[in-house]
């Protein structure tokens, strides 16, 4: 955790921005402490920042994300979003999964307003159609409002899922490998779209990924996790200009970050 302290001091550029999301001394163990999934985790996400977490499989990434989403309570520690502790699912947390998970009996726009329908009822959902239409426009799905999801490609379905996540205007976006089921070309493209949307909405995002280049090209900060029990072995600030472009994938600075993260993960694997 020494490194973490150093890194937070170094994040001077973001110092002016308020902290949106905070994890303090969060741990998680299962089976009455028999299995430690998460070692002590401290995390502070500044408003408008994009962070990614990367680590070997089984390191507790998804546990961490579930704790952050309020789906699972931590064994100890505090989780605070916008000054209030996270005690369960909240409307100011938007989440996205590997699968788009659109319901086939709902049109695209009906899928997008589903969160409103669940939280505020059908009338509010109807009233949100205008906002949903604007979001679909934003992600390039204008004209697909009344189409059923079986007519959407994988990438288009994930765009609709982005809209569904954004429709409640959450303060925090939790992304669980959102594009890993797409082919590489669509994934690169969708990552750039994600960046554009996040910049446009000034969203705070937290991404779980298995792809090191993806983590680097999208993030302001990359958290590298150790194998179980998971903890951050290093927090790396990515000092590349915004907006990032796909050309940067061949940039030597990005290559250096990728190498650094890979060596950390390799070290971890043999410990």
């Amino acid at each position: 955790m020494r490194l973490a302290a150093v890194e937070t001091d170094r994040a001077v550029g973001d110092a002016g921005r308020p902290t949106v999301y905070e994890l303090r001394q969060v741990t998680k163990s299962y089976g009455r402490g028999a299995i430690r999934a998460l070692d002590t985790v401290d995390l502070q996400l500044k408003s408008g920042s994009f962070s990614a977490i990367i680590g070997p499989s089984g390191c507790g990434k998804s546990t961490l994300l579930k704790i952050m989403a309020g789906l699972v309570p931590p064994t100890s520690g505090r989780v605070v979003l916008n000054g209030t502790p996270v005690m369960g699912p909240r409307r100011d947390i938007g989440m996205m999964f590997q699968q788009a998970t659109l319901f086939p009996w709902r049109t695209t726009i009906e899928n997008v307003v589903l969160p409103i329908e669940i939280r505020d009822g059908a009338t509010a959902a109807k009233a949100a159609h205008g906002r949903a239409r604007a979001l679909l426009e934003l992600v390039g799905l204008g004209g697909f409002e009344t189409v059923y999801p079986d007519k959407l490609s994988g990438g288009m379905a994930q765009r609709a899922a982005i809209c569904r996540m954004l429709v409640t205007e959450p303060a925090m976006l939790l992304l669980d490998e959102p594009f890993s089921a797409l082919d590489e070309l669509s994934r690169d493209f969708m990552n750039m779209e994600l960046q554009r949307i996040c910049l446009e909405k000034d969203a705070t995002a937290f991404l779980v990924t298995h792809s090191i280049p993806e983590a680097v090209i999208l993030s302001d900060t990359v958290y590298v996790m150790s194998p179980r029990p998971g903890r951050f072995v290093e927090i790396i600030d990515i000092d590349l200009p915004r907006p990032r472009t796909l050309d940067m994938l061949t940039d030597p600075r990005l290559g250096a970050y990728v190498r650094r993260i890979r060596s950390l993960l390799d070290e971890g694997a043999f410990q």
Partner: protein
Amino acid sequence: MTEYSSVDAAEAPDTVWSERASLIDRVPRSLAMVLLFAAFIGVWQLVHVLRLVSPIILPSPFEVAEDIVFVGTNLLSGGYMLGALWITVKEVILGFIIAMAIGFSLGLLVGETGFGERVVLPYLVAIDTMPKVAFAPLFVAWLGFGISSKVALAAFIATFPIVVATAAGLHVANENERMLFKTLGASRWQTLFRMKLPTGLPQIFTGLKIAAVGVMAGAITGEFLGGGKGFGELIRVAASQLDTPRIFSLIIFLSLLGLALFWSVVWVERRFVFWHKTSVAGGPGL
């Protein structure tokens, strides 16, 4: 099929390696079905002409056709057979409605609650393994020789497929869908009605189709074993008089009733499960 027949083999160069349907696959489906039916009737007539089976046991197709016309006229002119058919229709419809009411309720109990799954389900499985027709005398003893004992047997037989299908349907929704609803803070009812039930509808309709077949069998068996005035009774009387053409024609009209019920279920399914491709294509004659 037409895209294959339009390829002229003589004109196509030898080097083209094209898919060719077999001879049987190139016959239009409706024609093939008519031909199969004609072949069946032909064999039947042959058996009759050659006296391979006694004509009392197996009437000729023409005798059956004649009797179908007779029964049909009786039905259309509002004869006594129409009254019998109406009784059977009532038994089937009431039995189906009761089976759906009990089946959905028990299915929800078993599929949604831990109590239902751990405590109720074992009993349901135990009852389901019993030969349900054997309960017919019991229903007659309890409910008499009227329509209710037939409705009870029909409903009894048709309930189980609906229970099983509903309970199974509630488990179809995958981990992602459940997680999504959790993150949205959905209540149990919202999760049930907006996700689990719609996702399970294809399964539920499969159960309903099985039940539609079962409810017919239940009503007719009930009439065989418990008397009454329905179509099953007409069959029983015809059988006791060795009137085999009549049995055949009555069975054919019964199968029309069964098809009507089955197709009503399919019709409802198409309206509700329009989004599910494979289930919509299910059913005979589609």
